[in-house]
């Protein structure tokens, strides 16, 4: 009896230590981010930090073009990936015959495994020239190109999660729609998709998380010019995102300098934006559930 109790105790403690340490690591990373990033907000006056010009060599740390750049590329990516992803999920789950679903689902999930640098390379060598020629622009490295590549990266996640959400809608919902004289399409659109709404929202949030945090592919195809994307044609001009800025400049910055702290500061801003997005999504889902009935 005794040895048994000992192994039980040992295994339990091991699991507890492992679980707590992974929480600890996340906490430490967060503390490190705060320690390195917060000085930026103290050393650089707010009007400089919120300025429109990013020239670190002249002590101009305007993060606004970077934030807007990230948002522009992400918004473009989502507005392409959302309709495409949901439509594909509906097709795979509701329209395609059984055997096609069995083939399509794993194939789509494999797409998620393509390394982002490969996609970036593809975007740079194939997509960018294509965009340049079609638009007759000076360069094909634009926010739009970045949005396209990111949309492609977010698609497998969105399709896969949205498909699972549709799959979880009970068959009785479809029956209820059909029994009222709705066509299959009307049933899908009015009954099945709304019933899977929270799952689809989760899919979009996951896709968005992937898009806004993506660095490598974006850096390779957006041109990386820190200009304010406020003109109408900004979508088809180069932009620079927060992630690309950190990745590109961290290697050559002097450790402990203002520039160094500002880069970490951008990291904090990125973190806050992602956090707020998730909070909003979770809030929307929660509110929906509170209203009861359909999830």
């Amino acid at each position, binding site marked *: 009896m005794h040895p048994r109790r000992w192994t039980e105790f040992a295994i339990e403690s091991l699991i507890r230590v492992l679980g707590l340490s992974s929480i600890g690591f996340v906490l430490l990373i967060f503390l490190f981010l705060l320690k390195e990033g917060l000085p930026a907000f103290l050393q650089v006056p707010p009007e400089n930090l919120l300025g429109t010009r990013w020239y670190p060599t002249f002590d101009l740390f305007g993060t606004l073009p970077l934030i807007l750049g990230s948002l522009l590329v992400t918004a473009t990516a989502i507005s392409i990936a959302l309709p495409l992803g949901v439509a594909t999920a509906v097709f795979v789950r509701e329209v395609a015959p059984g055997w096609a679903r069995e083939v399509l689902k794993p194939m789509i999930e494999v797409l998620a495994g393509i390394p982002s640098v490969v996609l970036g390379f593809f975007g740079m060598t194939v997509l960018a020239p294509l965009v340049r020629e079609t638009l007759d622009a000076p360069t094909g490295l634009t926010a739009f190109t970045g949005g396209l590549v990111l949309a492609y990266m977010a698609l497998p996640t969105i399709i896969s999660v949205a498909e699972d959400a549709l799959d979880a809608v009970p068959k009785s919902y*479809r*029956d*209820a729609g*059909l*029994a009222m*004289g*709705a066509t299959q399409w009307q049933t899908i659109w009015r*009954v099945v998709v*709304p019933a899977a709404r929270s799952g689809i929202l989760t899919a979009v949030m996951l896709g968005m998380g992937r898009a806004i945090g993506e660095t490598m592919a974006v850096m390779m195809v957006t041109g990386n010019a820190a200009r304010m994307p406020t003109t109408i044609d900004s979508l088809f001009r180069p932009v620079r995102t927060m992630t690309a800025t950190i990745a590109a400049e961290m290697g050559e910055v002097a450790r402990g300098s203002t520039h160094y702290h500002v880069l970490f500061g951008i990291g904090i801003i990125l973190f806050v934006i992602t956090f707020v997005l998730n909070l909003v999504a979770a809030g929307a889902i929660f509110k929906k559930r509170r209203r009861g*009935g359909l999830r």
Partner: protein
Amino acid sequence: MNDIKIRIENLTYSYGDKVALRDVTMDIPANAITVVFGPAGGGKTTLLRLINRLNDLIEGTRMSGRVLLDGKDIYAPGTDVIDLRRRVGMVFALPLPLPGTIRENVEYGPRLAGIRDPARLEEIVVRSLTQAALWDEVKDRLDTPASALSGGQQQRLCLARSLALEPEVLLLDEPTSGLDPISTGRIEETLFELKQRYTIVLVPHSIQQAARVADYAAFFLMGELVEWQPGDLLFTNPRDRRTEDYITGRFG
């Protein structure tokens, strides 16, 4: 006996290898409540789903025999299935409001059928909810989410939703199985009103309910129609031994 609304002829139906209905032949009279009852797995739900072709999308099923609505084979090629389902409404065991408000739920079917005139829709909403005995409880909150209603109210909403299409036939699959006795009583009273205008086929959730509401009753056992005749006869003087055993509670 009333006119025959639905005639089922030699209907055999199977899901893969599992036979759900075996050579069923029966008539369903108009303007009456026909109760289809028996132990679980007897094919009652399948029978209902075949009357409005709700099983069309299920793969791997086989069917032989005919289902006639007003003398016309509903499985004949060229039948408008959508139109059929508007003529033959169905209410399920689980009340299932659509996402949206009470009004939107009732208006959904008529809107699909192409009715857009607001006055006409309003008239339909009032009539359907009144027929389903729900109007007095919800008339002040038609624009609140349907999911906030209680279970019994949701079920009557589903009934109203079917009635909004003014179907000729109403299929009810254990509509009161999840409800308390008071809500059940309300729905049964509603059915007595409705049978003046509609043909009703009901799968009851208990033998007592079957006996209470049946004008005609059909007893199903393992896919077989054991017997069917007017309700007062079947429940007082069953012809088949198995029916008698079941309604007196000796099995099932």
